[in-house]
């Protein structure tokens, strides 16, 4: 068994670190909120810088302009970026959508979008949830009908991250009007600039905008801007969900380790020798290490093409619940200073804890609630019987 990096992987990790030293993350302009997952703020400039180094496309096959590097390199990149607090908010969306386009996209999609992704000029939002379709996603009402060479898309999506500043969305819509539940769905790739798109911000409890609501009114999407075959949207979704959960959370362990480092610094200076704080921080460190080990196990299974749904869902649940615990601990350790916002004169640790604390309450909801994850583990990994569906 070997948890280490090969020489080539170590060289890549060193290369990423050298880049982060040469161009410190805080020198890049930010254009979207840090949602607290550990991927920092949304920064087009930083995304382009990743593209310039070829890192956005390094895992792609060579025929699509990639370097065919194994998945381990992406893990290294994400861990190093998270440890440094870099603003790579759009990155996991880019990785996931480009992977889908390479595997299941039409030639048009591959030709139009992949080069933009590689250069860091295309970023993505996901159009899954709707006002009446949350955990019961298959109750969605967004529809697309074929008219000549276009899908005509009508409906409403909600809680889509960065939708107002991203360039494209992947929208799950019912394309067979006679279908129900998981049949007759398609995954459309939608350009934000198309007429009929109305993207409205939702201000979150942090006071900042991260999510958007998207109104689609007769949006004409080219016929071959579909991932997979029309009607196979559910299969695309399922494939995507496991990897979304993995790639959208895998950097949370290094992120929490960074937050823990801040809290250690604070305790050392503000309350040295406090036995309770000491015990709590050490305890959190063991949990963060266990979280990382669980992600590595999931990564190993994914790379080998083995079923990993249970491990991925378990890692997501643990990442998000542990994140809440670590940030709650941070709020307690900072005492009255905890609530002071970044930028205020007396804020401690640059006010980072209060923002991350607030965002953490959305994480156990986003990407499938913790309840959905636990049901997924029970039914799909442990083989327990599914709960009967209520009759409509």
């Amino acid at each position, binding site marked *: 068994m070997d948890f280490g990096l090969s020489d080539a992987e170590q060289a890549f990790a060193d290369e990423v670190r050298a880049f982060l030293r040469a161009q410190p993350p805080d020198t890049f302009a930010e254009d979207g909120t840090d949602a607290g997952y550990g991927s920092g703020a949304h920064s087009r400039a930083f995304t382009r810088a990743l593209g310039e180094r070829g890192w956005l496309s390094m895992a792609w096959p060579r025929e699509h302009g990639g370097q065919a590097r194994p998945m381990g390199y992406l893990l290294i990149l994400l861990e190093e970026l998270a440890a440094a607090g870099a603003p790579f908010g759009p990155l996991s969306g880019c990785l996931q959508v480009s992977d889908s386009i390479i595997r299941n996209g039409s030639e048009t999609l591959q030709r139009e979008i992949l080069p933009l992704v590689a250069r860091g000029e295309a970023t993505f939002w996901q159009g899954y949830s709707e006002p009446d379709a949350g955990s019961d996603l298959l109750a969605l009402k967004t529809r697309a009908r074929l008219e000549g060479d276009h899908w005509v898309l009508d409906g409403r999506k909600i809680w889509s991250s960065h939708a107002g500043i991203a360039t494209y969305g992947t929208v799950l819509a019912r394309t067979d009007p006679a279908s129900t539940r998981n049949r007759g769905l398609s995954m459309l790739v939608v350009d934000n600039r198309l007429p009929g798109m109305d993207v409205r911000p939702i201000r979150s409890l942090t006071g900042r905008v991260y999510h958007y609501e998207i109104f689609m009114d007769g949006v004409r999407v080219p016929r071959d801007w579909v991932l997979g075959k029309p009607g196979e949207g559910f299969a695309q979704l399922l494939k995507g969900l496991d990897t979304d959960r993995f790639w959208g959370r895998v950097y949370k362990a290094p992120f929490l380790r960074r937050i823990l480092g801040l809290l250690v610094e604070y305790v050392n200076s503000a309350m040295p020798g406090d036995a309770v704080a000491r015990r709590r921080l050490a305890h959190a*460190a063991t949990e963060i290490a266990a979280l990382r080990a669980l992600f590595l196990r999931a990564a190993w299974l994914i790379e080998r093409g083995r079923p990993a749904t249970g491990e991925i869902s378990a890692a997501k649940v643990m990442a998000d619940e542990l994140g809440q615990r670590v940030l709650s601990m941070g709020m307690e350790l900072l005492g009255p200073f905890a609530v002071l916002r970044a930028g205020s004169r007396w804020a401690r640790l640059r006010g980072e804890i209060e923002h991350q604390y607030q965002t953490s309450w959305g994480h156990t909801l986003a990407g499938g609630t913790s309840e959905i994850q636990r049901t997924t583990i029970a039914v799909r990994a442990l083989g*327990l019987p599914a*709960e009967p569906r209520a009759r409509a």
Partner: protein
Amino acid sequence: MDLSFSGPQQLLQQSARALLQQRCPPERVQELALDPRGFAADLWKEVATLGWPGLLVPIELGGSGGSIGDALALVEEMGRACVPGPFITSAVVATSALTEAGGRRARTLLPALALGDRICTLAVLEESGRLDPDVLALPVSAPGRLAGRKLFVPDAHVATDVIVLGRAAAGPTALLLPMNRPGITARPLDSMTGDKLFELELADVETGPDDLLGAPGGGWTLLAPALRAGALARSAEMAGAAQRVLELCVEHARGRVQGGRPIGGYQAIQHACADLFRDVESARWLTWEAAWTLEAGRPEAAAAVAAAKAYCAEAALRVARRGHQIMGAIGYSEEHPLHLFHKRILAAGQDAGDAALHLETVARAIGLA
């Protein structure tokens, strides 16, 4: 990264699982737990012929010179079967210390340990209950005389030899004594875990220069790495035991019908089982990662092992405790194996350093002043 088991490890796992299922079913574990002097002599003899006790003994001393990972693969299976006995104490901790110490006495004992003919235990803890070289009180000298007592000495009723850690002028010092040395008396401690723990009374025990294990003052340097291997082995044992608890719970949840369907079809039970899965998998892979740091000689190994031991103790106990709720009333009965796993996890969590001790190692590693 390569998280697969080596070929020999897979063989070891398969043969151990098959053998233990047959020779050490829960009824046997129960019987051994209830007998204050319980020891599965036949099983010990059988696994000795398979070379288990010699797994970590160097090849030139009659063992198979295996890695700590090989030992963990075996110990995980032993945890899964809830196997009691002196394996971890003798074949992991004492064997590691003796191999490290070298010297005539150790080199004579190791081949006998490998054959399973002799069993070596450790006498480290005292009345403070703390695994801390700074609080050792027992004065030792060799040559000289020992007077005092040690607590929580495992399997002293079947051990033929004991490593005693005490304090000499030069600092913590280890001795290797035969259990039949006049003046050594073992008195059983009545533990709810069913593990065999003893108070070792040392009444005017005569020691010679030959009894020294390692250098005077070097006792802790000698024992700390061996205890680290022991902490890792206990982590694997707990992960294995927790894995079995998860399996028992899932089997029960699938088969037990209430309200017209299996209780595993209700979210309340499903979500509890999902949490067990999270705890088992995270504990297991954290342990294997720590084992890798130790084998690869990484600088963070001590902290990684400490984190694994502290985490496994907590996560595996959480599994056992939640398991009682999933299993319902049947799991409360003595005949059901759940309590055996629960108690084994409790015992393993204490051995080779409890969570508090290991968390202190972690605290220093993350930079707490």
